[in-house]
């Protein structure tokens, strides 16, 4: 009897312990999405290895600075993770204003910082750190567009409302273009477009919009050629932007830098083969043939060193991150958070497509970084902040009390 009691007591105790541990584990799972976390950590590690190898031959690729970026980013991620973004859904106007201000900060005297011909940087006073505000603008645009899109409760019935939404996206998009960063503008546009499409417009409107956009792009290209020849200087698009596009169409069309870069990138990726050339054995990057091997063309460096296998691992990690995030968005009960999550998916998806695609000749050349891999603290900080936002969405996925 006593024995049985003791047995029951011990069994109870065991159950209690089990329950407590499972509850603790559950709470951890509750607040942090494991697949996203693992994917991001793996990407960070992978990126660190790649940047470390780049730092062996490229003096600009400072490995400690890369680690600093990761550290700052992880800090930002934790801050974002602890913050409940649902409260932002009502501040769409403020978000828009902040976004536009952030985009134009490089033009504020005292903040703007131009070195080596680069524009779009600010130098934070007192600390002296330099930063690319457009990286913040991407995330702010997502938050702002999601706030607008969430108003329609998943169904936009009125074409005017749809047009208004599109017009609102054109504001940050146009601002980024005005600031002179076509690549980031495309990221903002793509992320915003994903949010709009997920907000529930009619499919016909979306298709029509796409058609109109293609038409407008064609019109701009045509007008640009005509206006340039009429006025004798670059009006709408800069010549290097046209060159990049032409080079994408025909890699041999331009023998200047754009064509050279693309050709060297293709050679780097292609010559990597199945297993790659190994760490430190990447001749294209190591001997300086591949430009910007640690930033814009980091994927080419990675492909050359780690080959097809290494590229697949990278793609698999990105796929895991993106599909997990889509799942988080799906699971979230808040429409606003859903839209924020898909917006971030849009950022990642487009940046991966554009950056990897440009290295392998799928996309025209633009200077946007590969998330979590490219050297550059601004991008690293904000991409990890995006991860923090995703984790926050996971943490707040059920209707809060």
């Amino acid at each position, binding site marked *: 009897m006593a024995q049985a009691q003791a047995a029951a007591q011990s069994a109870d105790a065991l159950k209690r312990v089990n329950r407590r541990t499972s509850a603790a584990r559950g709470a951890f799972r509750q607040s942090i999405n494991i697949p996203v976390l693992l994917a991001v950590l793996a990407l960070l590690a992978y990126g660190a290895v790649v940047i470390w190898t780049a730092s062996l031959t490229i003096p600009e690729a400072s490995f400690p600075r890369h680690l600093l970026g990761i550290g700052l980013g992880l800090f930002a991620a934790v801050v974002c993770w602890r913050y409940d973004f649902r409260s932002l859904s009502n501040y769409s106007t403020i978000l828009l204003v902040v976004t536009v201000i952030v985009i134009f900060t490089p033009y504020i005297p005292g903040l703007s910082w131009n070195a080596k011909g680069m524009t779009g940087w600010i130098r934070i006073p007192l600390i002296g750190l330099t930063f690319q505000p457009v990286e913040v603008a991407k995330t702010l645009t997502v938050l702002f567009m999601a706030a607008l899109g969430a108003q329609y409760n998943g169904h936009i019935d009125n074409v005017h409302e749809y047009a208004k939404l599109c017009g609102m996206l054109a504001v940050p998009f146009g601002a980024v273009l005005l600031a002179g960063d076509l690549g980031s503008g495309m990221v903002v546009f793509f992320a915003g477009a994903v949010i709009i499409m997920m907000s529930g417009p009619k499919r016909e409107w979306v298709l029509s919009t796409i058609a109109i956009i293609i038409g407008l792009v064609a019109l701009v290209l045509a007008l640009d050629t005509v206006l340039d020849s009429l006025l004798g200087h670059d009006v709408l698009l800069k010549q290097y932007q046209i060159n990049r596009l032409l080079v994408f169409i025909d890699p041999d069309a331009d023998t200047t830098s754009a064509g050279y870069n693309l050709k060297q990138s293709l050679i780097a990726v292609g010559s990597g083969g199945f297993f790659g050339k190994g760490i430190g054995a990447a001749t294209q990057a190591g001997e300086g*043939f591949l430009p910007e091997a640690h930033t814009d063309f980091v994927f080419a460096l990675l492909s050359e060193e780690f080959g097809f296998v290494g590229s697949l691992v990278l793609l698999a990690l990105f796929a895991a991150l993106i599909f997990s995030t889509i799942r988080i968005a799906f699971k979230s009960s808040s429409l606003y958070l859903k839209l924020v999550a898909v917006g971030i998916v849009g950022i990642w998806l487009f940046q991966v497509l554009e950056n990897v695609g440009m290295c*392998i000749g799928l996309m025209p050349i633009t200077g946007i970084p590969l998330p979590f891999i490219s050297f550059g603290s601004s991008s690293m900080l904000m991409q990890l902040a995006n991860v923090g936002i995703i984790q926050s969405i996971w943490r707040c996925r059920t209707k809060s009390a």
Partner: protein
Amino acid sequence: MDAQIVVVIAGAILVFAIIAALIFMRTAGGRFTYDTQRGTQPRATEGEGNTPGVAFKGRFTMLTAAAGTVFAAIFTKLWSMQMVSSDYYEELAVQNQTRTVTTPAPRGRILDRNGEPLVANRASLTVAAYRDLADNEILVRHLANVLGMPYTAVRRNIIDYNQGAQSLHTVASDVRRSTIAYIQEHASDFAGVEVVERTERMYPHGSLAAHVLGYTGTITQEQLDAQEETTEGDGSQAGRIQYESGDIVGQAGVEIEYENLLQGIRGEQTVMVDATGNVTGATGAIPPEPGSDIKLTLDLTIQKACEDGLKRAMQVAKQFGHNNATKGACVCLDCTNGEILGMASAPEFDPSVFIGGVSTDDWNTLNSDEGGHPMVNRAIAGEYMSASTIKPLSALAALKYGIMNESDTVTCTGWWTGLGEANGKWCWNHSGHGPMTLKSGIIMSCDPVFYEIGKGFYYDEENPEGLQAMFRAWGLGSKTEVDLPGESTGRVPDAAWKKEFFADWDDADRNWNPGDMANIVIGQGDILVTPLQMACAYAGIANGGKEFTPHVFLSAVSRDGSGDVVTYETKERLTGDFGKQSDIELVEDALVGVIYDESPSQAAHFTNLDVTVAGKSGTGQKNGEDDYSWFVVYAPADDPKYVVASLVEQGGFGNEASMYAVRDVLGVIYDQPDTAGTSASDGSR
């Protein structure tokens, strides 16, 4: 082109897009219909469900599919690049990092028959640059300071319009090693300045035999084009030397004639470079194969003797008042095999001016009338009337065609009127030689004897051109096929030639007349021969008819010892024509007689030689110029070995100039210098 296509396509897409958008907007607006029968509820016709959950599920499926498409596209492209085409890209990557650097192969040397180098090589550190560099004034000034040259000189060398724009222009040759080291250590300050180690031609004996040896120079565009054509012609030229712009090739003389033996095969080395072109390593190397050394038949001593003898001859001619005696030629042959032992031509030139590119001034001087065209090898390219040296051949013709016999005599009164008083001709000896046989006619060079022969041929029914046939049979009027470029043919005039040559004259004037015949029979008029042709003809006489093809090439030895030794195979060129054996013996005897019996002053120069000499003088007359001085000899007369022929333009009588040249050559050959002093000619020819 591309941009226009993009614009056109974009425009087409724009039109299509706008039309499509309008249609969609219209139909979308019309999809909400009021159903009067089943109620007034608007019915959405979208494919998505009505509840937000179902709708979102569909959208998320789309988003997932879009993301999947992106990854699939990247995967496919990566597969094609890294799995399928990786070899292609690998090759491109290797191409990126490798450059082929060529190392020039040293040219073969040119030696005399005893192995004494006439042309050798010498390594020279050269600073060179492309023409563009001249635009960079600061760099050029810096370079000028380092080289210790005036800025303008450096700049002029860099621009150097004598060389192609794409070729490296030599700024300075023979630069000190310390200077080279300084330039190489400060490579970034001297971007575009190249240091080249070149092997340059060196002439240990200066201008000696320059006409035979020739010179080298950068390959010309025409030569490159010619190579292109021949290579296109047949592709089986695998072993041939492929020339590149900037290669040094032979441009004259033996240098060009035996270019394919002398030219080495350049070495190639594959080096690894980084993106900025810095060499980071080296891989496979093919060492350069030096060209073969060539041995010439020239004998340095005899060559020197020919040149010195020719100089002395011209000097003596000047003593006799022939101040224009500055040009001439002197050839020494081995009549037993055709080997050319010495070949001199005046004026001479210095082949070293061509090293590293000849300057415009030098080139113009070398090709000007004032300079006397020193690059012309007068021994093979100079065409002169043969004068009396042709008389032995005329005699052979007369004997063969029965125009005159050994015993026939002609009485020379000094004024020959065989073609009528109006067409009377002087013998050189205006006082007359008296009765002359054919043999004494040759010895005394008596013109009327030969005028008779000329007249005899002209009026001969069967062989009116037997004389010309005889000349041709001994090799006149055709190339000797000597292995040197630029040989002249000479000319044996006949009736057909005269008609054609003076095509715009009246028919009467173009007709071949007995006067023409009387002219060419003594080597005057329109007949033209080269000194080498005469030397060969006399070699034939000395040999009893047999003439060998004259040549300067003896053998070639591959420098690395592996190649075959190429040796010249003696070729018989022709056998001179004559009637009977006694004919040629008569002529040979007469030629000995010329040396010892024609005049005591002439004989005095030969009696102090142990060997018997046979030969003939000649004096060519040209209107408005001093006489052209000829002398051709062979020795020993009883067993001929050496033939020496000399010509001095405007040198006066044969024994006023050329005789001293041939005598000096014989003197060197037999080590018995001419002890007789120069004496005024007694006028014998």
